[in-house]
């Protein structure tokens, strides 16, 4: 009886202790967050979120390395997402949960929604405060980060699109001339398509769809011209690669997670993509001989010009430290690492010539971008628009007769268009 009473008391004590401990640990966790940075002597933790493949991850680790020597009050935590899709899904949730990172690395193709909703902080005053020299970056790249006369991000890489072709497959197929027009691209794709290999990887993704739209003189124009005749022509050409000519493949069809993987595995002879193919292919298939070319002309010469950049979230409690990180991340050796390890073009104009010297094959691509570069210019409700565009194109390709390109773009104009 005594033992029974004693064991009951022990159990009660343990239960009460568990409850108390759980409350105390929650309290401690929130206190830690509050205290972090409150004292000037304690390092401030800056969380940086981005999507990255293996080569890019190595680069970002290098970017953050040694920051404590320059800024002893800053401690950097890197938060990598394996795909852009997961990044774009996770960050808004983190913002809503008040657990957002301080800095996000994203491309200007999807930043307008964030800027218009007030998620990104304007950084003009921060730039002055930390003494960041804006002139180290090509002026034109700031356009994609500006909205209503305020700057919302710093470009770190100059992005463009290109057509990657497998040199060996072209030689084996006896094609000597590389495609310079969309008609030549189609003819080559037909010749290159065999039982084992497709002529072109045309991922049903807004990035790739936009290449064909731009090549035929089209432009989303922030929602003003979604259903223009040029856009219809461009999307129709894209769709016909599947439905009419049977020369295109999506990554999913062959079990790949993205178009670069399809190209690196040599399952497609051509792919629209970008300079990020360089680093990825070097790591995945070092024997692959590929040629980067400007996007072929449809009715006009065109190529997407955009940039990847670093932006500070409005919810960040350490905006000054975040801006200091951005300033550190744009040091010359980091820009050199970007092109050496990832194969991306740096935004720093002083480093660009060295990049082009190391990657002379990309010179025509970037020269074309300078001449005819066009931004993505998606409507403000970007994610919704791109999701509906992709779904609509999938319906056209996989459910023939259910929808036409014109109907799709008319619907999108009604849903997302602006005057």
């Amino acid at each position, binding site marked *: 009886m005594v033992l029974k009473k004693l064991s*009951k008391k022990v*159990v*009660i004590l343990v*239960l009460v202790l568990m409850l108390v401990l759980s409350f105390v640990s929650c309290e401690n966790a929130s206190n830690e967050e509050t205290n972090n940075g409150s004292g000037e002597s304690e390092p401030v933790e800056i969380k940086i979120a981005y999507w990255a493949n293996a080569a890019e991850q190595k680069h970002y680790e290098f970017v953050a390395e040694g920051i404590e020597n320059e800024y002893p009050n800053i401690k950097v935590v890197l938060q990598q997402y394996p795909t852009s899709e997961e990044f774009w899904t996770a960050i808004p949730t983190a913002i809503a949960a008040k657990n957002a990172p301080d800095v996000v690395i994203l491309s200007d193709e999807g930043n307008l929604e964030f800027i218009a909703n007030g998620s990104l902080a304007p950084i003009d005053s921060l730039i002055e405060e930390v003494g960041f020299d804006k002139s180290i970056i090509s002026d034109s790249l700031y356009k994609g980060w500006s909205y209503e006369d305020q700057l919302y991000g710093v470009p770190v890489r100059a992005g463009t699109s290109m057509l990657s072709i497998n040199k060996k497959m072209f030689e084996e197929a006896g094609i000597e001339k590389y495609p310079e027009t969309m008609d030549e691209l189609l003819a080559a794709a037909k010749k290159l398509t065999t039982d084992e290999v497709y002529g072109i990887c045309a991922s049903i993704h807004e990035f790739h769809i936009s290449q064909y739209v731009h090549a035929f003189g089209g432009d989303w124009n922030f929602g003003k011209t979604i259903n223009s005749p040029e856009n219809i022509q461009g999307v129709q050409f894209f769709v016909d690669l599947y439905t009419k000519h049977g020369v295109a493949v999506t990554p*999913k069809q062959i079990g790949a997670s993205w178009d670069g993987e399809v190209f690196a595995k040599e399952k497609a002879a051509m792919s629209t993509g970008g300079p990020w193919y360089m680093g990825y292919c070097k790591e995945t298939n070092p024997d692959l001989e590929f040629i980067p070319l400007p996007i072929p002309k449809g009715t006009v010469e065109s190529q997407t010009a955009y940039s990847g950049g670093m932006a500070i979230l409005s919810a960040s409690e350490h905006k000054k430290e975040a801006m200091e990180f951005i300033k550190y991340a744009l040091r010359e050796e980091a820009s050199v690492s970007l092109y050496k390890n990832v194969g991306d073009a740096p935004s720093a104009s002083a480093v660009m010539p060295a990049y082009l010297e190391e990657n002379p094959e990309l010179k025509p691509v970037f020269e074309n971008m300078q001449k005819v570069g066009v931004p993505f210019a998606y409507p403000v409700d970007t994610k919704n628009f791109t999701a509906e565009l992709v779904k609509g194109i*999938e*319906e056209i390709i*996989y*459910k023939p007769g259910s929808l036409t390109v014109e109907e799709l773009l008319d619907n999108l104009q009604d849903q997302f268009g602006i005057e």
Partner: protein
Amino acid sequence: MKNKRAKRKGLKNDTLMGYLFVAPILVLMGIWFYYPVIKSFFYSLQDINFLNPDRAKFIGFQNYVDLIKNEDFLNSMKTSFLLTAVAVPVQTVLALVIAVLLHNIKRFKAFFRTLFYLPYITSSIAVATVFMYLFVEKNGIATKALAFLGFPDTSWYANVDLALPFLIILTVWTYIGFYVVIYLAGLQSIPKEMYEAAVVDGANAFQRFIYITVPQLKPTTFLVVTSGMIFTMQIFDQPYAIARGTAPGGPAGATTTMIIYFYQQAFVYNNAGYGSAAAFVIFLIIITLSILQRRIFERDKEGIKQNKRRFGLKYKVKLKKKDKGGMEYGIEQ
């Protein structure tokens, strides 16, 4: 009097102990389940975007009205119902047959039971990824085998007509082991004497299965069907894994179930309010179906008690006490 007081005190202590034991889990459930559910309901009454939740606007039940008129949501309902209507009966029947076969084997029972259970405890993403390799065009083993039966040589998960059947196969394969184990437990509770009596009366294996096993397993079947329906209606991992980093629910919405639709609205399009409304509607649908199912099964239970006659065989088990202690089962016709 003293005894009554002591008894009351004892009861009070027991009650206190009971509350203390459940307190930690109640607190955790409150934080991780009830609070988010209530918060989600409030979100469903607002026009709220995750990118800037401070700009939320109260709109009443407008989200619910928009939802039931939305063609995409209605299509996702159709996909979920189709998936459930095919996957649940298939996995229930297969699980029962496998459990009966396993129950009757003498050797390596534990080994086979583990083998069937393994898919259930394996990561659903890993299972989906492997299945995608099996069903990939040109080189997939399953694709090649099924091509002999007339199916096209194409990646099933990337084909708008085959993506849902692929999902059904994946779902059945993943969950069947769990239900086999549940049925095995149910089979062990059926008295052996019933089968012995049936053998004496001349029932063959099939008749014993139909007239003894199946009716006796009705409560287990109810559990299997209900939990199968709930799991399948809420399936998310598999359609998400099939998407492979692209927007889930493709191709062209072929695998957009209700949960995927809710996920897209809330986390891809950041329409937290509309997505929350979708989540509540899904909850109401599932709970309604569960209640309906329970009513149907309870009505059938009454039917067993009335001893329906089929093929001239009728069994009723009556417990008879032997004179010298011990019990015996007697069969009355």
